């Protein structure tokens, strides 16, 4: 019922929609940026992208491109797309999705060539770039999926950072004690659920503002893990910190698939958490948009009153989703201490929970969108650390700002329309 009503309002909305010029303006500015920076200030010489590794199934020759030539092509394409966006806005009133997608991809390629061409070595190993990026992307994806789960049901989740951190700590502790990485993994999920339970208790039962609870929970988890880290993990038994030596999850390369150039090492040479990530994203997308469960969840997030009227238990749905999100983020946290690094350290999530929030928004509360955003942010983050070693035309700090700046542009309507689920942040009190 609510869906029918929504479609109606949507059609109505199209008829009276106010044209937004923000996106064409932004694209125009970026295209001009491409002209100035990629062509006029662009590096001479070539940029080399190394693609294949020795044990790949087949060898792909290195991609060598003239930096300036690519700059010219990229500039022309982006200019054309910006004009297309302008004319679409003028005639249709909105920009088709492929224009934005193509623009992003082309611009990113131009940026990469410009950056690599400007380094002293002028080459980069793509495998290294992407496998390194996965170290950032994996927890980001889990974090943003936690956000998708709770925000789609109408609960703002600022506590992703806390859930990740709780997961990382618990995984390290339990895996160290039991010498079993899977026990650590389950414990991490449980820890995430615990943080979520607090979020649900305070924001749903006691109707405390969800943002306040989220902010406070982050501080609470940081304090708690920091305190226990000092008290327990730093305790030495026979000269060794036995409570902070987690047994790691093994890598499980998939035969054949793992030997495809670039894609193999990036996606098919991972630990179980990496595969869980892929399954999770697809399952969540399918679940949210193709099943009865997803319809209910979205109804609760968009219009709880309507959902309640047709017999959906709004607050139970919210609690379940928030708890499930906690489990997901907890597993993402376990990735830190069971896969990425050898042991737990204080505040080791270092704000990734907030980048996950950014990915969630940039991906428009859609699991696949959020995962792609997480991939983009992961690549940017890893590029930053690679570049800090290579000497570049731009400082790595500007790459570090990228996710945040993009998110601000997204929420201010410069990159399409980032709209949260309508009832997100609203407590539901039955009248």
């Amino acid at each position, binding site marked *: 019922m609510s869906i029918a009503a929504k479609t109606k309002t949507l059609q109505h*909305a199209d008829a009276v929609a106010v044209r937004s010029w923000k996106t064409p303006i932004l694209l125009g500015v970026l295209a001009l940026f491409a002209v100035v920076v990629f062509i006029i200030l662009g590096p001479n010489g070539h940029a080399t992208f190394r693609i294949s590794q020795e044990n790949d199934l087949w060898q792909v020759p290195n991609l060598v491109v003239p930096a300036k030539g690519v700059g010219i092509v990229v500039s022309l394409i982006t200019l054309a797309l910006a004009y297309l966006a302008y004319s679409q806005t003028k005639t249709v009133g909105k920009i088709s999705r492929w224009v934005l997608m193509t623009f992003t991809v082309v611009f990113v390629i131009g940026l990469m060539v410009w950056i690599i061409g400007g380094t002293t070595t002028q080459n980069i190993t793509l495998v290294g770039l992407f496998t390194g990026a996965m170290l950032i992307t994996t927890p980001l994806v889990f974090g943003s999926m936690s956000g998708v789960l709770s925000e789609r049901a109408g609960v703002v989740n*600022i506590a992703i950072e806390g859930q990740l951190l709780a997961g990382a700590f618990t995984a390290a502790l339990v895996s160290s004690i039991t010498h079993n990485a899977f026990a650590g993994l389950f414990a991490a999920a449980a820890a995430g659920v615990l943080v979520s339970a607090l979020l649900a208790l305070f924001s749903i039962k006691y109707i405390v503002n969800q943002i306040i609870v989220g902010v406070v929970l982050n501080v609470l988890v940081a304090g*708690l893990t920091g305190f226990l880290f000092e008290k327990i993990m730093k305790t030495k038994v026979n000269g060794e910190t036995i409570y902070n030596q987690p047994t790691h999850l093994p890598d499980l390369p998939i035969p054949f698939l793992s030997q495809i150039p670039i894609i193999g090492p990036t996606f098919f040479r991972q630990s179980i958490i990496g595969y869980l990530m892929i399954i999770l994203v697809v399952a969540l997308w399918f679940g949210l948009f193709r099943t009865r469960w997803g319809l209910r969840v979205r109804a609760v997030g968009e219009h709880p009153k309507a959902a309640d009227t047709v017999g959906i238990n709004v607050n139970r749905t919210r609690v379940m989703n928030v708890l499930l999100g906690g489990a997901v983020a907890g597993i993402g946290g376990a990735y830190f201490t069971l896969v990425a690094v050898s042991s737990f350290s204080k505040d080791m999530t270092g704000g990734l929970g907030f980048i996950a929030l950014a990915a969630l928004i940039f991906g428009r509360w859609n699991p696949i969108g959020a995962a792609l955003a997480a991939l983009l942010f992961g690549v940017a983050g890893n590029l930053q650390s690679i570049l800090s070693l290579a000497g570049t035309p731009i400082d790595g700090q500007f790459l570090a700002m990228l996710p945040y700046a993009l998110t601000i542009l997204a929420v201010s309507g410069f990159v399409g329309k980032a709209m949260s689920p309508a009832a997100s942040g609203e407590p539901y009190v039955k009248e």
Partner: protein
Amino acid sequence: MSGTELNKPAEESGATPATPASKPAPEAGKESNGTQLVREIMSGNAVISVLAVVVALVIGGILIAFTDSRTTSAMGYFFGDPSATFKAMWAAVSEAYGALLRGATYDPGARTWQGRLGIFETLTFATPLILSGLAVTLAFRVGLFNIGAKGQIILGATFAGVVGFLIELPPGIHLVAVVLAGAIGGALWGGIAGFLKAKTGAHEVIVTIMLNYIAVSLVLYLLKNQLRDPNSTNPISPRMHESAMFPLLLGPNYRLHWGLVVAVLAVVAVAWLLNRSTLGFEYRAIGENPRAARTAGMLVSRGYITVMLFSGALAGLAGVTQLAGTEKLLDSDIAGSIGFDAITVALLGRSRPWGTFFAAILFGAFKAGGTSMAINADVSIDIVAVVQSLIVLFIAAPPLIRSIFRIKELRHEGV
């Protein structure tokens, strides 16, 4: 949804008019959320606040007791001698909280005078908390949630630093210039969020969170390049000129500086602004009900922009007191945890200027005492963050405290 509403710039949160009606009346929803936030923070009474502090300290005590090494070893023979366990727990907690209290106020046992009067350390820590807490408080009253104190502190400190260590000015004028520069820096950063909120409907929580991280990267970049101390390999700035620093209030033995006076003046100013001025009346009206405020002829979007400018300026001043009073040189961690502490301070102070003042003193005491607790009782200062966040959680959920203490709900107005 009517056409006239669509053509207006987004005066309040979330809803962009450019994306009308895809969600049923999001405007009304978000409005009530901001309003609800204001009510939530303003209501409740002092008893709840005190009890919240007590419960939080008790939970912190339990944590300390159970993680103490003496307790864990006494628990090994718990059934043989249960009293030993309880004695050990009591010893651990009383030692820790004793050290906390002495470190924050007065420690007769300390060897030096500096160590003895911890109360002045408390006030030193409280100074930036007062200012940044006020920043959050002010924005709260308009229904905005400024999570960006951290970024505003950093920008304020950066601007103040540029004036303070790159430029030479006569004494007196120099300090004034530093303070003004800091306020401008913070105001700019806060203003971005206010402007985007007013003109595009971008949610201020998201924007300020993102601006925090951008500020950290920005200052790191500057500290690696333009603002770097040429004599250092670390990304830190040169020391502030002597004329650009706050004079010490109590002589060279204590770190307490004139920044505290600035902070107290700011409390008075914000209290006047909110309770006595026309602008403050508008702010409160917008915070209570933006739609009614607009109907009454108030410019809601102007309210959002100006309040974020003021709020940012206050946080910027917090950055100034940190830089020109306590730290004396700029590094990327100049804001420390002050930005997030500011939120808890404002919540504990129930979004009232003097409430924020006392909450900041309490949290300053936690910080000063926490340091001494870490040194003297071997309890990590992280426990302070635990206690602080628990306090805020309990205060934000009065029904929980009521049910713990079986207090009947009484309709008291205000504190």
